[in-house]
Every structure is written in C-alpha cells, then in structure tokens.
C-alpha cells in the first residue's frame, strides 16, 4: 500500500494534541482527594528527575562531560541561580569538559 507522508504527519499531530488536551479540558476543578492531589504534586519532580539522569550523560559525546554538567547544574540550582544561568552554565561545562577530554 502506498503511504502518504502528510497523512502520517496528520495522525501524529492529532494523537499528540488529544493526549495533551483531554486532561486540561476535562479536569476543570480542583481535585479534592488528598492522595490524588499529593500524587499530582509529586509527578513533576519524579518525571523530570527520571528524564534528566542518566539521559544527560547520553546527550554528550563523552558521558563524563554530561556528568560534570549534572553536578554543576545541581550546585548552581541549589545556590539559587536562574533557569537561564543554570542552562547556560551546564552547556559551557559540557563543552569545556569535552574539549579537555580531547586534548588530554
């Protein structure tokens, strides 16, 4: 069967949007159940932590560079640096460590 790339793109876009839209459109009030509220409170921290590590070590050519960026990012965020500062410093640390690893 001949497939049309545009139809693929339409299918992907429709599914992606519905997944995101349904909960936002349907859950219109504050959830009162304490367990569910607590669960949703912890979801962002759990999911962002899981997505950050060890993925950050796979994003760089050298895992060590990603690890150094992780440690630098945690320290800076702990010190209260802004989103932008932490992001830029992590990039810089990863770049410098990769450069050093090439030369030594």
């Amino acid at each position: 069967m001949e497939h049309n790339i545009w139809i693929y793109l339409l299918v992907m876009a429709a599914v992606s949007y519905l997944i995101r839209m349904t909960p936002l459109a349907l859950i219109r009030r504050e959830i009162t159940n304490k367990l569910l509220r607590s669960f949703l409170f912890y979801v962002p921290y759990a999911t962002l932590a899981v997505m950050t590590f060890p993925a950050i070590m796979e994003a760089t050519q050298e895992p060590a560079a990603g690890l150094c960026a992780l440690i630098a990012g945690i320290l800076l965020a702990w010190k209260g640096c802004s989103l932008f500062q932490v992001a830029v410093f992590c990039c810089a640390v990863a770049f410098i460590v990769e450069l050093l690893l090439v030369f030594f």
Partner: protein
Amino acid sequence: MTTENKTCFQHGMRDGSPIALGYFAVAFTLGIAAKKAGLSAIQALIASALNNASAGEYAGFALIAAGSTYLETAIMTLVVNARYLLMSCALSQKLKPDTPLRHRMAIAYDVTDEIFGICIAQPGYLNPWYAYGAIVVAIPGWAFGTFLGVIMGNVLPTRVVSALSVGLYGMFLAIIIPPARKNRVVAGVVAIGFALSYLVNRLPLFAGLSTGIKTIALTVALALAAAVLFPTDIVNNEEKSPQSGDDSKKAKVS
C-alpha cells in the same frame, strides 16, 4: 491584554529563550532523522510545529521510514507521548478552576517536558499568558531547528550540538532542585528518581522497554509511593513559599 497578562507574557518569553536554544540543538538532530525517513524540509518543519515532541517524532519518523500502517503510527505516538497525559493532569491543577476552555485548549498545544516544567515552577496559579510567551519563543526554535537539520545535515560540529542539548537538562535541574532544597520529600523523590532511572536504564532486564514506557512507569511508581507515604497539603497553588505571596494573585485570566 491587561498589563498583568503582558508582564506574564514577557516573563514567559524570558524563560522560553533558553528552551528555544536547547530545542534548536535537539531539533537539529531530529531533522537529520526526518531526512532519513524521506521527509522534505517543509514536511519536517510542519511535523515539528504540530507535534512538539522529540521522542514522539523520532518514533514517528522511524515508522514512516519503515512504511508502517497509520494505525501503528497512531498507537506508537500514543505510547511514546503518554507521559504528556500525566503532565496535563498535573497542569490542570495549576490552572484556576474558572480558566476558560479556549485557554485550556491553547495551552494543550505545547505541553512539552520543558514548557510544563517552567509552568509548574511558577508560583501560584498559572497565568496562560506566561505559557504563551514561552511557547511563541520556543516553537520557532524547535520547528526551524528541524527544518535546518534536514537542509544542513551535519554542518554544526557535533560537540556544539551535544553541549547545547545539555542545556535542556540544566533547565530541568533549575526546576526540581530549588523545591527539593525546601522540601525533604521532594528531595527524596528526586534522588530516588535519579537512582531508579539509572538502574532501569542499565539493567538488561528492562532493555526491551522503550524510554517512554520506562519514564511513565517510574513516574507513576515514585509519585504514588511518595503520595501514599507522605500525603501533602501543599499543592502548587497554595504553597506558601517566600516569593509566592503577591504572585499568587497574578494569575487573573482575561
């Protein structure tokens, strides 16, 4: 637009700019995958502008390359992007209950890991205009990054691309670490999240699972365990953190 909404929009644009930078780098590599699957630069641009999902698009492009059915593509997109369902549930509690449907439907367009992250980090209720500000800056970075990835392939040195892609993780850290410093349970969730994620990604036992499934399973398990063991009355909207006092009023929706 009220002054308040305008301020929120500008804040969103400010916080969206590092996201755009990181998106650009990731989307660039995504464009290379799109090209392999036979997409034109315009098709890749539209795919990215409509999907806003790195793993979801990667998976989709792989299926297109393999000539899979549309149904398979739909199911795969659902599975790989299922974590957004969870994020949208959490984000629904961050919106004022009387937020109109049009705002809900508009925000839904770009619930990504990053936009979700910065929205959740806002004190008090989320003003939709904050999300819009971030979205208008971040989406072009994502869409045109994919576009240029198709056209220019491997022009950017890989070291520059890999350094830039670390920026997105840096942003995640800036979102989860400050609350972890204030709340021990959150700190525990983050630390155990790192550890479990490392184990699950290294143990051969779980090698057959896709990244999306692993992320969802770990998120649900961790958040549920934390909720059962440490039920909390702190909900983002009512959190009494030092800076949230005045800001909690700023989420007026026009």
